[in-house]
């Protein structure tokens, strides 16, 4: 094995890795990023083909266990109530995402102080506010100021994306109920914005390729900037170990290249950005005599406190056509009426309801939002009843951290290169179940108020594990956290984690803006303290 010496090597080219790479390279550091996947092509995406929905169920499924692409690693989810969804490519899981872009609320960072549960983050909303703003400008966010549910901020770069008939009805229902709602913040262009990126043409399925490049993803937002700043990006690089010296300091990483050859990449600082699953896996894989339970794991918390966003789904069926297949499928408006803690509801913390549109024929039949349609004699009538006649409210709850929810190494599964796969062990507690049931009741009430003739509820969406959080918790106490408030390992000072693994709590909101804001914040901390970890000023 041999390789060059860099200031920084980053593992993972997704939302957080891209942001950190750009920031550090722009400041003059020599940065290499190793990505397990490859660039995606925009020339032949499924959305350009008639069989796009077939691709969504197979080759472009969000689950690596169903997709089974050569660049993927399997995930043992046999003990997980929520199944993992992720993508391995330049851009990571933003390649497939729906592009919701909400910021966490100030209270999300201080749940121990405010509600007596879990832990406070060692940082506050205000520490990230400027990074949120900068990230919004780079990614491109459509939305509107004035939301009473969130702190004031700079104007969004773009006006909101188009609503749809379902949003008209549900928004009016929210108003009659006296509930909070606002147009969703989304990382989707409502006008041309960014280099080579056009405006959304409302095609619908953002997850099967946006040749217009209206829907943001890290490969078309941060990566062009990062490459221009000098980042060296190595694709098809499957990292399997963080290497250390005799003092326990990180010296770089070992990886298999596209040909299966083991290689080493040395750097003064190692940054992990492989999501809450991949990062925990890599920390577990990096065992030594000094760290028999995995590197950076003196607290025993690596892999623990896995959080998702448990989601119930409520679908309103309307008598008139809704045309929910028009417009970005996952985004329109949201309600945070039940977001903050109100113990009279019977649970602590809260949830958000997001109005999503609907699917094409396959998605309707297999149960993209509403449950799968029945087979047999009643199937075709059921299809006619719901197709083009639905809108759905997701009930997205906060998922408080519990150490028994965790990522470990699988005893049975390995990837194509023989590297042990991660195993997710995950269940819901009663507080979360109560939140979902309350949310189903709220969403049902909203749809009835909106005039839906039928309402269908699903208690828990199994394939909702896009948000992989908490497995390398941030904190000031090395005995109760994995990284410090600047995302540096307590045990290994030149090892950082900048993805969702560091989240102390999950909030009840899509995490990507916060993940990227934390990555930028952590990168700035490294730049400030670079001398202490061996990076020349």
């Amino acid at each position, binding site marked *: 094995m041999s390789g060059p010496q860099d200031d920084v090597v980053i593992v993972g080219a997704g939302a957080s890795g891209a942001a950190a790479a750009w920031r550090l390279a722009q400041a003059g550091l020599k940065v290499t990023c190793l990505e397990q996947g490859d660039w995606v092509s925009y020339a032949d995406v499924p*959305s*350009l083909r*008639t*069989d*796009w*929905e*077939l691709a969504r*169920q*197979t080759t472009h499924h969000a689950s690596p266990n*169903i997709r089974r692409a050569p660049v993927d690693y399997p995930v043992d989810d046999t003990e997980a109530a929520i199944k993992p969804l992720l993508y391995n490519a330049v851009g990571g899981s933003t390649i497939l995402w729906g592009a919701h872009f909400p910021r966490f609320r*100030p*209270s999300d960072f*201080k749940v121990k*102080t*405010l509600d007596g549960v879990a832990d406070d983050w060692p940082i506050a909303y205000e520490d990230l506010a400027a990074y949120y703003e900068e990230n919004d400008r780079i990614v491109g966010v459509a939305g*509107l100021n*004035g939301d*009473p*549910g969130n*702190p004031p901020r700079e104007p969004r770069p773009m*006006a*909101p994306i*188009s*609503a749809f008939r379902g949003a008209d009805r549900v*928004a009016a229902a*929210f*108003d009659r109920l006296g509930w*909070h*709602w606002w*147009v969703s913040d989304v990382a989707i262009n*409502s006008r041309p914005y960014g280099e080579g990126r056009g405006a959304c*043409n*409302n*095609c*619908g*399925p953002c997850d099967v*390729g*946006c*040749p*217009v490049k209206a829907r943001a993803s890290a490969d078309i937002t941060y990566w062009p900037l990062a490459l221009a700043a000098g980042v060296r990006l190595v694709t098809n690089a499957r990292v399997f170990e963080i290497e250390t010296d005799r003092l326990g300091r990180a010296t770089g990483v070992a990886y298999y290249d596209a040909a299966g050859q083991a290689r080493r990449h040395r750097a003064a600082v190692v940054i992990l950005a492989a999501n809450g699953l991949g990062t925990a896996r890599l920390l577990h894989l990096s065992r030594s005599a000094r760290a028999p339970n995995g590197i950076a794991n003196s607290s025993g918390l690596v892999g623990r406190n896995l959080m998702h966003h448990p989601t119930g789904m409520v679908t309103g069926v309307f008598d008139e*056509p809704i*045309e929910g*297949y*028009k417009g970005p499928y996952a985004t329109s408006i949201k309600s*945070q009426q039940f977001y*903050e803690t109100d113990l009279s509801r019977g649970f602590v913390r809260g949830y958000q309801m997001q109005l999503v549109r609907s699917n*094409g*024929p*396959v998605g309707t039949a*297999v149960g993209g939002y509403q449950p*799968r349609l029945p*087979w*047999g*004699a009643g*199937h*075709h009538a059921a*299809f*006619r009843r719901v*197709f*083009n006649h639905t809108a759905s409210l997701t009930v997205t709850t906060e998922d408080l951290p519990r150490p028994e929810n965790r990522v470990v190494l699988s005893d049975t599964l390995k990837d194509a290169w023989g590297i042990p796969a991660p195993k997710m062990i995950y269940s819901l507690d009663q507080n979360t179940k109560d939140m979902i049931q309350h949310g189903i009741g709220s969403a049902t009430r909203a749809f009835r108020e909106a005039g839906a003739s039928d309402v269908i509820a699903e208690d828990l969406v199994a394939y909702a594990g896009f948000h992989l959080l908490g497995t390398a918790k941030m904190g000031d106490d090395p005995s109760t956290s994995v990284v410090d408030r600047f995302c540096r390992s307590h045990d290994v000072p030149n090892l950082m984690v900048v993805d969702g693994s560091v989240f102390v709590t999950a909030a009840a909101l899509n995490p990507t803006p916060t993940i990227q804001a934390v990555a930028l914040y952590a990168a700035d901390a490294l730049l400030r303290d670079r001398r202490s970890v061996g990076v020349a000023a």
Partner: protein
Amino acid sequence: MTGPLPQRLLSAALDVLLPGDATFPVASTVGLATRLLDHPGLAEPALAAAARLDDGFADLDAAARIEAMAALERAEPTLFGRFVVAAYSGYYSTPAVLEVVERTSGYAARPPQPEGYDLPPFDPAMLAVPASRPPSYRPTPERS
């Protein structure tokens, strides 16, 4: 299991799932069994489910076929669910079926891109009521 007998069994099973009606075609008339067997991502669950059915499944009467399928669903819900997803995916991505969907719903049986759809711009007037409300978020405690 890709010979004529298994394919006949699979086709019969798919016709139970998607029997057709006055509007939609029965699965076998659009060649769904062949479509599934020709697709790498759909063949495996289809063959796995068909392998759990008795060889004489295709010769059962309609009621017995339905009962056999229901029994398989009860016994192996995960496998059966994957089979149903494969069947629906293949069926509703078949051009002949998409033509029916278009004719009966107005949904365009074409790729989403590059044409997309026209929608009016977002109307900020929609937000008049919520915009009039006081702040409802809790500020950071130590800075409030």
